[in-house]
């Protein structure tokens, strides 16, 4: 699947496609960050009351987009830690921004560890391989849904660990 991805026309990893110098110059204070977390929490609540199978993609897309623009400003880890601190969760040294935002937006006790890991792996896979402009839900579905993307991510990580 990874080989297939690499052959996609216009496929670039997120690090290459984004011009990091495009900092938009508008201050992003704690109030704005808190509003973003609140917005995600609201979407999460709506998703919980929606029985449609693909309702979760609305929440995942919102999380993905938030991390994506933090990445443009090269402040992902700092902001993820700030989000955790704002919601009263403990900041961690090597925090994964996706799981940090999940924990901040959804009370940690309300999200099963397995689900958190499934969503995080799928989003990390998408962050590395989704072509710009492609909708997140379409991308994830194309690669076998959340579980498919999660296992692709795990495979890729195993390969990079073993240098093969």
């Amino acid at each position, binding site marked *: 699947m990874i080989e297939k991805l690499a052959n996609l026309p216009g496929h670039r990893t997120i690090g290459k496609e984004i011009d990091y110098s495009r900092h938009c110059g508008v201050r992003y204070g704690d109030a*704005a960050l808190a509003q973003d977390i609140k917005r995600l929490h609201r979407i999460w609540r709506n998703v919980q009351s929606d029985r449609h199978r693909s309702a979760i993609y609305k929440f995942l897309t919102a999380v993905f987009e938030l991390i*994506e623009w933090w990445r443009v400003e090269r402040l992902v880890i700092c902001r993820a830690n700030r989000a955790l601190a704002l919601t009263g969760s403990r900041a961690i040294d090597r925090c994964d921004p996706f799981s940090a935002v999940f924990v901040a937006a959804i009370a940690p006790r309300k999200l099963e560890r397995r689900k958190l890991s499934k969503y995080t792996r799928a989003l990390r896979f998408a962050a590395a391989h989704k072509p710009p402009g492609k909708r997140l839900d379409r991308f994830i579905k194309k690669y076998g849904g959340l579980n498919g993307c999660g296992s692709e991510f795990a495979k890729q990580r195993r390969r990079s660990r073993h240098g093969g």
Partner: protein
Amino acid sequence: MQYHMDKTLRFWVEHEAESTKRKFPNLSQSQLIASILCEFESAGHANRFVRKDGKIGWRATDKMREDLFEQEQAALDNDDDD
């Protein structure tokens, strides 16, 4: 600096810019827009995203649309009362 916004947000930012400009005539257009966007974002009425071209874009949030709808309904109710 150019700010890319959706139609709803642009309309309200321009509306806000007119009144803010009167209060702070020394601000440049770019500073004015940046401060309004910052204010809107802090109120949960605007959020940023990465556009296809890799630039940051701005759009109105659902909260802004809901608040506008409520204000519109309130204005209509007031008209009916008059």
